């Protein structure tokens, strides 16, 4: 396959219904009203030259190379800013137009020395192509402009810098500070595409055009280096730049890619589609794919640039074994590793019983891979001991939405936000965790929608350029249920609920019961305010706005689910949406923002110990029968062990072996010491991953994993969208992860013969009602679909609960607030809450192995100035962070983003081990750990704690690999 070049229509699509017909260079074209002449022409196959226009951005009309002639009109209007009209006759080529365009282009070239000529830049930019298309053959103005060096000098690797006697007084040196792209101001033609991309698409407003005449060009922030500026490195400007002024370093170093493969980002739950552009077998760059239905051509720094981990030297490419976890690793063949694992698993089951082993699926792997791991456990191990780290993340969503709405599905697609009037954002920080969707939210907010933010921290959606939340409720960590019930109180007592909706679509009795419950004076704004530490009047205002402000959409994240009352809070959100009739159409709904790329998919694929794929309980005979018939074995009807239970059982001695695919439970699960004790008690721990992760310290078998670039399959994003993952390069360690699991199954005696993941999807479709219409062919054809996808919805379901709630009638559930048992007291007076930041991902195993460390070299502890001063802590000081469980040290960042009494950190770096201080309290319904609230104390410190130093030594010890020949 060659390089995919997407057509640039020059201006965005017009969404109006009415059609207009015109002729362009004799061709008849019909387009929606409001379309530009430029776009209409391109749709008719006529490309009009352009420099300042591109279809990701509204037209600007500054470059004047896109001029056309329209019969019956004077002059030469710009085709990018002129709309089509019925019966219009347009000419895009003529003597006059050629002359004007050549004149304009010649001026540009004179101010753009290195962009014109064979050896300059990549020689493949849009600018170079336009110069050629326009037929530019001379430059009478010279290239000695005051802002650039002479072309020959530049080609020779240098130029004359200002102050060296040259006339290039406005010359600015190249900015190479960003790890992924360079900015060469002398090549800038001031088309402002980058500035507009940063503002309109990304919503960050980091770039501006500065100066006039020769001095004028784009600058980042207040003329700062890119890396120090407000730039978030999303790449939109680089993508938009028609010259090589902004260009990926990889392209400049290695040359233009030769072929591309469309695939899906493996970082977060937005699920952006990219073109992986490759030269030889090396990925040169990732370009956001405009047809991607979740990202529409946008990206963030992780998906766009941070793929270097795939080729990082830390990757382990050979299977390894060791007798004891204190031994050094020994490299072995796949055959030996698999045979050993199979033998050990069978021995353990023989000795300790069928339930003594289990498996963990990964929300980073594909649906097909997850499906195989749970199948291996149920069919091969004969039990239901399969779980996933999504437990630490989104199981309360499943439970909460299922109880109220009858399905665990998030209700909307991302595009739905375009019709939202009021956003209620709680416990999520999308600008960091779901950046591409955050850009959509910001765009809608700039169009006039309003936002209510419930979060202990002042996140970017509370206040940032062009964003100001209508209300910010900085609640005390752990009081979500109280605030939601408080909002409900206002809605019910002020009769702001939608009675007609409730009567038609919900259980009226349940509503009445719930209404009576929330109306109790103990949930009044005044009482709620006391519990949550916020202002009563603001609660009232916020409730009124959500209930009566038009289409209200709820967005929530880990800040809701990672609590001892996570499931209850999710029900509280669903209650609010149903009560206000904000369900079942565009612009509304209850939208979980899922963390990792395939959290949704791994849950859908039966990763939980009580459920088969499609959320069907293992005790249901009819469902078990489907799989028993297909797999030819009797299946266990008892629920299996959850991850925390597995660890408990390991300590008790009844659980001895585990197969962990693509997860690092030691680092991502709470209470590190407990996890370590459980792992240490096992006899065969198999880690299947890219790197020797933290969990691998306790492993006996290591199976090398494959990255998303090395496999075919599907990921399912936060909007239930099934996205295709395409193999870009061959697996570096011989097997894609699904193949490795299949080999393990075979070693255990199972007769598995999948030759391609599409066959696994066929099996999923054949056995799971919500997936029955899904095939790889369909996905190739449609790009992606959202489940449910079956006879009733052959092309999938963007919005759920249209014309009725899935459950039949919506169920209102009482949500009694119960304070967490993790309480502050004299010894631990502060509340710690955790989160993540943009440039790093989850436990950071991948992003720490890329240039992204430029932005986040370590985890910092955010402390309010008041708390810092009380303890004599200054910005940048080492502080000791201690809780009832343990202590760690990290550096302080003094900021008023957090409220007094609250401290905040991320957990991207293993050295910090923020999880050693978190508790092992869990959500009552789903055992989802309470990451978000821990009572702590802080004090100045001199550096890393004893524990951290010991840990470092241990890590080094446990990573020794004895390089012996594999096949002895």
């Amino acid at each position, binding site marked *: 396959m060659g390089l995919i070049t997407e057509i640039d229509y020059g201006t965005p699509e017009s969404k109006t219904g009415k059609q207009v017909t015109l002729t362009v260079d004799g061709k008849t074209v019909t387009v929606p009203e409001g379309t530009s002449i430029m776009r209409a022409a391109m749709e008719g196959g006529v490309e009009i030259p352009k420099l300042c226009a591109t279809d990701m951005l509204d037209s600007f009309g500054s470059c004047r190379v896109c001029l056309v002639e329209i019969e019956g009109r004077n002059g030469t209007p710009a085709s990018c800013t002129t709309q089509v009209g019925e019966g219009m006759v347009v000419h895009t080529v003529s003597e006059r137009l050629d002359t004007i365009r050549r004149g304009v282009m010649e001026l540009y070239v004179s101010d753009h020395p290195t962009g014109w000529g064979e050896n300059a830049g990549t020689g493949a930019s849009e600018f170079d192509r336009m110069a050629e298309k326009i037929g530019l053959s001379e430059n009478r103005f010279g290239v000695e402009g005051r802002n650039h060096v002479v072309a020959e000098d530049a080609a020779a690797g240098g130029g004359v810098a200002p102050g060296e006697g040259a006339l290039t007084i406005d010359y600015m040196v190249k900015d190479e500070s960003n790890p992924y792209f360079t900015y060469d101001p002398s090549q800038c033609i001031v088309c402002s595409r980058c500035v507009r991309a940063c503002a309109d698409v990304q919503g960050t407003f980091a770039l501006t055009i500065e100066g006039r005449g020769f001095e004028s060009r784009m600058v980042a922030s207040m003329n700062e280096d890119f890396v120090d500026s407000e730039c978030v490195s999303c790449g939109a400007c680089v993508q938009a730049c028609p010259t090589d002024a902004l260009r990926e370093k990889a392209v400049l170093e290695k040359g233009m890619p030769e072929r591309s493969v469309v695939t899906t980002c493996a970082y977060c739950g937005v699920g952006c589609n990219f073109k992986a552009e490759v030269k030889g077998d090396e990925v040169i760059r990732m370009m956001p794919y405009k047809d991607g239905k979740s990202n529409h051509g946008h990206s963030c720094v992780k998906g766009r640039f941070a793929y270097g981990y795939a080729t990082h030297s830390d990757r382990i490419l050979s299977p390894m074994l060791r007798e004891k976890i204190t031994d050094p690793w020994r490299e072995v063949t796949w055959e030996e590793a698999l045979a050993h694992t199979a033998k050990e698993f069978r021995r353990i*089951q*023989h*000795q*300790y*019983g*069928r*339930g*003594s082993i289990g498996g963990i699926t990964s929300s980073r792997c594909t649906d097909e891979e997850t499906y195989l791991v749970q199948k291996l456990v149920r069919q091969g191990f004969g039990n*239901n*001991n399969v779980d996933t780290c999504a437990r630490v993340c989104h199981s309360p969503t499943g439970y909460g939405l299922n109880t109220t709405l009858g399905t665990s599905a998030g209700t909307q697609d991302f595009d739905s936000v375009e019709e939202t009037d009021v956003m209620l954002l709680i416990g999520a920080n999308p600008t960091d965790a779901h950046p591409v969707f955050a850009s959509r939210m910001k765009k809608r907010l700039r169009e006039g929608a309003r936002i209510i933010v419930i979060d202990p921290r002042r996140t970017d959606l509370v206040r940032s350029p062009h964003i100001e939340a209508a209300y910010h409720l900085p609640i005390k960590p752990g009081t979500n249920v109280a605030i939601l019930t408080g909002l409900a109180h206002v809605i019910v007592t002020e009769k702001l609920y939608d009675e007609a909706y409730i009567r038609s679509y919900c259980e009226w009795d349940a509503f009445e019961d719930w209404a009576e*419950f929330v109306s109790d004076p103990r949930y009044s704004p005044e009482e709620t305010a006391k519990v949550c530490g916020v202002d009563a009047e603001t609660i009232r205002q916020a409730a009124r706005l959500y209930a009566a402000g038009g289409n209200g959409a709820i967005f929530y994240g880990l800040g809701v689910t990672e609590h*001892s009352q996570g*499931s*209850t809070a999710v029900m509280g959100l669903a209650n609010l949406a149903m009560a206000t009739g904000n369900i079942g159409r565009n612009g509304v709904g209850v939208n979980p923002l899922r963390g990792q790329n395939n959290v949704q998919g791994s849950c859908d694929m039966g990763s939980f*110990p*009580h459920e088969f794929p499609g959320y069907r*309980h293992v*005790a249901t005979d009819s469902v078990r029968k489907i799989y028993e018939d297909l797999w030819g074995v009797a299946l266990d009807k*008892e*629920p*299996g*062990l*959850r991850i925390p*239970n597995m660890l*408990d*059982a390991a300590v*008790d001695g*009844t659980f001895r072996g585990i197969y962990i695919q693509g997860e690092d439970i030691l680092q991502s699960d709470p209470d590190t010491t407990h996890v370590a004790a459980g792992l240490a008690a096992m006899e065969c721990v198999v880690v299947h991953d890219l790197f020797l992760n933290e969990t691998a310290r306790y492993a006996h078998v290591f199976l090398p994993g494959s990255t998303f670039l090395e496999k075919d399959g599907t990921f399912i994003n936060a909007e239930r969208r099934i996205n295709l993952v395409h193999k870009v390069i061959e697996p570096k360690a011989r097997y894609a992860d699904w193949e490795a699991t299949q080999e393990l199954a075979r070693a255990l005696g199972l007769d598995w013969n999948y030759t391609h993941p599409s066959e696994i999807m066929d099996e999923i479709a054949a056995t799971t009602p919500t997936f029955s219409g899904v095939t790889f062919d369909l996905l190739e054809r449609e790009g992606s679909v959202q489940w449910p996808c079956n006879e009733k919805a052959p092309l999938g379901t963007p919005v759920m609960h249209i014309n009725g709630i899935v459950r039949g009638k919506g169920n209102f559930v*009482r*949500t*009694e607030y*119960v304070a967490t048992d993790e309480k502050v007291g004299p010894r631990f007076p502060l509340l710690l809450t955790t989160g993540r930041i943009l440039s790093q991902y989850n436990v950071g195993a991948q992003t720490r192995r890329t240039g992204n460390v430029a932005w986040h070299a370590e985890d910092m502890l955010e402390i309010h100035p008041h708390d810092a001063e009380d303890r004599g802590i200054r910005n940048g000081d080492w502080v000791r962070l201690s809780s009832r469980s343990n202590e760690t040290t990290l550096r302080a960042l003094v900021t008023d983003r957090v409220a007094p009494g609250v401290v905040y950190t991320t957990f991207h770096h293993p050295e910090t081990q923020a999880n050693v201080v978190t508790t092992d309290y*869990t959500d*009552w*319904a*789903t*055992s989802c750990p309470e990451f978000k609230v821990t009572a702590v104390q802080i004090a100045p410190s001199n550096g890393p704690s004893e524990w951290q130093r010991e840990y470092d030594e241990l890590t080094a010890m446990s990573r020794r690999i004895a390089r012996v020949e594999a096949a002895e």
Partner: protein
Amino acid sequence: MSPDKLIYQANQIATFFKSKPHAEGVTGVADHINKFWEPRIRRQFFAMIEGGNEGFDPLVVEAAANVRRPSPEEKPAA
């Protein structure tokens, strides 16, 4: 798992169902345990309930009658 943790988790479930009408609460707790607790944990649960049910919320004790008894411990082939 440690007895304390088991009691704690059972009581946590009871806390949620307490705001329901009583009968519904009892079935709610039992259903929840049946649906999500692996036999080993239910076995331990029964042992503790029968051994004097100390520390358990009354709702849990009441619900215990409706919790499914796991089949006796599987004896590993010698």
